[in-house]
């Protein structure tokens, strides 16, 4: 595997109607690494991460300029269903479906055409194991996903994303609705997952970014409230020796 990213954006801008949310972002997401996107609220972190699997398409007034490549191919020339299978997503608040634990994880493989019962069971088990949830739920697979705690629900959502065998997992503030213990579990899990997957995480928590990520992208709004990429680089360098003054200001807490 080369260091060349599985995903990159080239001069990518995003508009909601007349409002420009992202301005000319160019960034390479390294393969099998954890990349954190940080910045103050409203800087376009979520907009950027939702661009990689075209979730912004759901907003009827959104419009893009520039390019995003996944596996070297423009995401807008790929089939969106196939793209989203390749680029999975975990959301801010745990969002299991109102179904059983098993049905939640089996949902993805089922829609992608796997009918065989034993095969499904194997996928479900592996995914839940990979999400470090197996020991807690293995006897309750038939129970409603809502019977789990918040942290468990979020790991279930990770298992659900893993079940369709993605290459990339996008995590939009995956721990913001969780308590510290559950957060720690998710962070440990990410460390494990990066061996197999490329991970992008949005976080407003700089300690978390420093703890878990290998690379960091720092976004900040300009005078027109559009998000710009200020700096991108290895996390250690960025946190110890930032190039840009604004990065330093943010990291040392001057933006709040």
């Amino acid at each position, binding site marked *: 595997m080369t260091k060349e990213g599985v995903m990159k954006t080239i001069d990518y801008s995003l508009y909601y109607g007349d409002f420009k949310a992202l301005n000319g972002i160019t960034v390479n997401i390294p393969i099998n690494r954890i990349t954190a996107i940080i910045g103050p609220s409203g800087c376009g972190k979520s907009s950027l991460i939702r661009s990689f699997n075209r979730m912004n398409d759901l907003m009827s007034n959104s419009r893009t300029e520039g390019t995003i490549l996944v596996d070297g191919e423009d995401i807008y020339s790929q*089939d969106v*269903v*196939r793209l989203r299978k390749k680029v999975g997503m975990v959301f801010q608040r745990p969002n299991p479906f109102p179904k059983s634990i098993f049905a939640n994880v089996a949902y993805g493989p089922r*829609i992608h055409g796997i009918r065989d019962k034993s095969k499904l069971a194997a996928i479900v088990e592996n995914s839940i194991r990979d999400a470090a949830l197996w020991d807690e739920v293995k006897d309750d697979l038939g129970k409603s996903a809502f019977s789990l705690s918040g942290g468990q629900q979020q790991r279930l959502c990770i298992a659900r994303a893993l079940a369709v065998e993605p290459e990339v997992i996008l995590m939009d503030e995956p721990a913001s609705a969780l308590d510290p213990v559950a957060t720690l579990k998710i962070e440990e899990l990410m460390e494990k997952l990066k061996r197999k997957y490329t991970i992008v995480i949005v976080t407003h928590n700089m300690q978390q970014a420093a703890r878990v990520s290998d690379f960091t992208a720092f976004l900040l709004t300009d005078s027109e409230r559009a998000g710009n990429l200020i700096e991108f680089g290895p996390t250690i360098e960025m946190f110890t020796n930032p190039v840009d003054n604004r990065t330093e200001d943010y990291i040392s807490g001057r933006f709040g």
Partner: protein
Amino acid sequence: MIQRKIKQNLAFSAMWLSCGLTVLIMLFVIGYVIIKGFGQIDLEFFLTPPRGGLSGEGGISSTIVATVYLVITTLVFATPLGVSAGIFLVEYADNIKSRFVQKLVVFARFGVETLAGVPSIIFGLFGYALFVTSLHFGFSILSAALAGTCLVIPVIIRTTEEALKAVPNSYREASLAMGAGKWETIWKVVLPSAITGISTGIVLSAGRIVSETAIFYVTLGGSYRTPTSLMSSGRTMALHVYYLAMETRAFDKALATAAVLVLLIVLLNLVINIVSRWLSA
């Protein structure tokens, strides 16, 4: 993959089709009635009363008068009652301390919900038993209006509630903070800002009375003469359509009357739509 896309396209086409069909049905019903009906309509149609008997001849002047008479009478009964009830349910009901009154509030809400689901023929039956026969009001505008009040009260209560809930709490707090009493606050601050919302409810109710037939079929009597007092019998335009179609089989005149009726309803709907759009803007 292609199979999944095809499935989606098939399903979406079915949805498109059902929606298109629904709109077509709407256009067809309204279009047919209006186009067929308008051939019969001239100024005379509006200005002469039905000739009565089995002829089906004549115009609809007396039925217009009866409709207006009935709508006004019903609203005179229903509006104060419905608006007051709505005010109570929004402004007072939630901070009542007495257990007994709390129970009454539960009953009151239950009453509104129940009333909204009662079929109109039951209102008719009730009106017939109480107003027409027991109270000896006979088949009259009065009996019909009282029965009609039961029909529209839940409509007025609900729209009043909606309108009052939409008034920001800060208005109330500001007024109360200046030492205004509760009722003063409602009368001078809350009601004026909710008045457009409340009036859509009243227009909606007028529409319900204009469209209703079953209740008035058993309480209004159906005389084609112009009503002169609350105790007169009469027939509304809707009722006239029924008599023309069912008793004299004068379909042409029935369609003409129905066209006027439909146009009126379209107009009322338009008013409500514009007002509520203006409210939410």
